[in-house]
């Protein structure tokens, strides 16, 4: 937690510094696309949100796996902290993609393989959060939620390869295509800057939420200790009165 506390201000100021530069490059400096015109500027928030939503899920699944295999409590805390961030990133990706779809494809939504698998990712994040918080004793939700997170990993390669395996409206990857990114530097630089800003924000939010989860667990431990002490005290008093 000391590392998290130390990194937090750096991540925040990194985001504050990178965001205006990224926005300037994305909205003012970069050219419009010859086909999609100015709607291409949605790319600069849609792509970082999509990449980070999937990364958040992978990290969540790794944390959950470490919790299931080695019973490492930090794995569970990390997954709990990541789930809402991943859900919001996924929602941003879906909403911006949908808004971008109207002028580009002529529709806000199609049950296309990429869009549907991304929607399933959102449901996985929401399902994880619902399951983790479904029990009166939060510790009981840890294991089922971790299993769901690990099983859901199967959706990540489906998202990635959906544009290759299925006939979809969504274009194929331009960033990670063979022979390097199929994008001019005038667009690649703003995308890189916005991605860096999103990474700083993502990690800062993760640090904030991790601190919160850590405090929540300590609170729970202290409270259960206090209750146990009270119960034991009452029992001892009852025994003493009975003996007297």
């Amino acid at each position: 937690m000391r590392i998290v506390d130390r990194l937090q201000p750096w991540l925040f100021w990194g985001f504050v510094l990178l965001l205006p530069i990224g926005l300037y490059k994305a909205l003012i400096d970069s050219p419009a696309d010859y086909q999609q015109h100015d709607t291409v500027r949605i790319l600069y928030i849609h792509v970082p949100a999509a990449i980070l939503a999937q990364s958040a899920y992978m990290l969540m699944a790794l944390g959950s796996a470490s919790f299931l295999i080695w019973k490492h409590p930090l794995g569970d805390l990390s997954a709990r902290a990541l789930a809402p961030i991943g859900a919001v990133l996924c929602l941003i990706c879906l909403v911006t993609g949908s808004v971008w779809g109207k002028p580009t494809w002529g529709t806000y939504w199609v049950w296309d393989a990429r869009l549907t698998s991304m929607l399933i990712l959102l449901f996985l994040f929401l399902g994880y959060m619902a399951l983790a918080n479904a029990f009166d004793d939060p510790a009981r939700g840890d294991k089922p939620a971790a299993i769901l997170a690990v099983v859901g990993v199967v959706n990540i390669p489906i998202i990635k390869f959906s544009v290759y395996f299925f006939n979809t409206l969504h274009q194929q990857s331009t960033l990670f295509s063979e022979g390097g990114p199929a994008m001019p530097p005038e667009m690649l630089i703003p995308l890189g800057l916005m991605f860096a800003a999103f990474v700083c924000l993502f990690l800062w939010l993760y640090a904030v939420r991790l601190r919160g989860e850590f405090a929540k667990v300590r609170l729970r431990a202290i409270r259960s200790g206090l209750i146990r002490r009270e119960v034991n005290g009452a029992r001892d008093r009852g025994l003493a009165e009975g003996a007297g």
Partner: protein
Amino acid sequence: MGLGLQVLFTAEFWAMGEHGFFVWTSYGFCALAFGLLAGLSIMATKRHERELTALDPSRGRGSVRARARATPPEKG
């Protein structure tokens, strides 16, 4: 304004070549979603840390302040 920021005061910039609705809706939604998430996360974390320091003043950041709050100075 040497960076070409004067473009911010033109109607063409906000119109985004007749696609302003799509571009600004996307950016607006993104800002709103992140703002809400950040606000709620900070509030929840602060609440938990405050409760923690109130229960156990010897722990955590700001414990000196929490201890001072827990034991108010005697009057007189």
